[in-house]
């Protein structure tokens, strides 16, 4: 964690931007000369225009079904990810702490988790639709399930690796089961928990798009598939970038919380 001078920082920024800028220019130029697969792929400027209409609306009477619906669809996806992810945390973290701490809990619960984990969340899709119908909870179920695995597995690992002397010290000072889990095992496992949270969040975004493409009639995933069907590749690409942006921003948010919660850890690595 070395601090960079503003000069170094600027140089890094320029280097990082070289590839995207070259790529965008090439894309735009090729598009202008109709060299992009028979005009199937729109140019960056066309994508930006479509995105703008999707966000702000076309103005006047428009037959564009996507006109001005960006925010509401984004909100739907965000809400589902939020709910499913929260459910995964509420179930995954305490269960992980318990499995990591108690041998009996580990022997009872861990094998089941390991047997279920290889079933990809995409394979759960028909089951989820059959069970919950074309409703919100179908999507939330998939998101929660997908995010649950990395959260519980990483929390378990963290709880298992807690320094034995810290546990001894806590018990010596009179900490019983509950206090030990809450005040020692959980905080000691927190770095691993956050690893699980970040992986889980990525899976949550994957799950929401898949679920919305198939099982729900709204959200970024739904628009993605719908736009593809009616040949609106400009909207498809704008949608892809929107999803990526949301994934990136939500990950930054977790990192921000992590840095706050783990100040002690950051100082240690100096």
């Amino acid at each position, binding site marked *: 964690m070395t601090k960079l001078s503003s000069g170094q920082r600027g140089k890094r920024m320029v280097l990082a931007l070289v590839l995207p800028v070259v790529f965008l220019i090439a894309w735009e130029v090729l598009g202008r000369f109709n060299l992009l697969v028979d005009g199937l792929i729109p140019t960056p400027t066309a994508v930006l225009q479509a995105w703008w209409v999707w966000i702000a609306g076309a103005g006047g009477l428009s037959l564009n079904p996507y006109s001005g619906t960006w925010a509401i669809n984004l909100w739907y996806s965000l809400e589902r990810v939020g709910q499913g992810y929260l459910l995964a945390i509420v179930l995954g973290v305490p269960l992980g702490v318990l499995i990591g701490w108690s041998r009996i809990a580990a022997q009872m619960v861990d094998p089941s988790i390991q047997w279920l984990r290889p079933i990809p969340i995409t394979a759960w899709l028909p089951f989820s639709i059959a069970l919950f119908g074309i409703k919100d909870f179908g999507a939330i179920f998939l998101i929660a399930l997908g995010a649950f695995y990395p959260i519980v597995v990483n929390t378990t690992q963290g709880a298992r690796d807690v*320094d034995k*002397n*810290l546990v*001894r*010290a*806590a*018990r*010596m*000072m*009179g*900490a*019983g089961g509950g*206090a030990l889990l809450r*005040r*020692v095992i959980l*905080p*000691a496992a*927190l770095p691993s928990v956050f690893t699980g949270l970040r992986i889980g969040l990525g899976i949550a975004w994957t799950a929401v798009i898949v679920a919305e493409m198939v099982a729900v009639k709204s959200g970024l995933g739904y628009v993605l598939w719908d736009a593809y069907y009616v040949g609106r590749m400009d909207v498809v690409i704008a949608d892809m970038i929107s999803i990526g942006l949301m994934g990136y921003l939500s990950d930054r948010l977790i990192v921000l919380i992590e840095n706050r919660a*783990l*100040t*002690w*850890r950051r*100082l*240690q690595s100096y």
Partner: protein
Amino acid sequence: MTTDAIQIAGVDKVYPGANPVTALQGIDLDIADGEFAALLGPSGCGKSTLLNLLAGFEATTAGDLKVYGAPVTRPGPDRAVVFQEAALFPWLNVWENVVFGPKVQGVPADQYETKARETLKLVGLENFSEHLPVQLSGGMRQRVGIARVLVMEPKLLLMDEPFGALDAQTRLTMQQLLLEVWQALKKTVVFVTHDIDEAILLADTIYVMSARPGRIATRIPVDLPRPRTLDTLTDAHFNEMKKRIMHEMRGH
């Protein structure tokens, strides 16, 4: 010094497995109330194991082990432990580490806060309550390790090579501090060390242990007058004792 703080009779500790390891064999030990006892011996002699049995971290294989008349079954605040690497909670600051014991025991804050402040002052850390362990030196961390157990006002203090990881200079400072603390509080202390100087400087009685299997080889009372200071280390009588103990240790 009338009542016994610690009564150990015929205690064995065997670690089972394909090749069972006898860590301790036939340990008999009585430590009086208020006594400062040092367990001295080479690594592998089982001195830390004996301390872990007293702390209740591990169970005896055979024999009786009582602390203030009660058999030890599990760890508890009546038998405070100071660990070699301090074992502070890295996510808690100095103050939170020091009040951890009373807090988890459900003691109301107004009953321990004064005591905690006094104790921090006693170990010289009153200006560091907001610091995280990682921001402290090894010696300061160990001061916190001592403060957090003194706050619980334990009858018995178990110290497992608490200054073993410190540099020579800091070790002397910490020994001085412990002498002062002990002079003021007169707790029963069991102090594990492999440093002969440290054992003589601090203890009323030195129990020399030998290895494989771990046994208590000799009991040596230290008749140096108290209060002691670091000057005791250069005392003629100190050197005589040291010579005798080194002789004893070579003999086993």
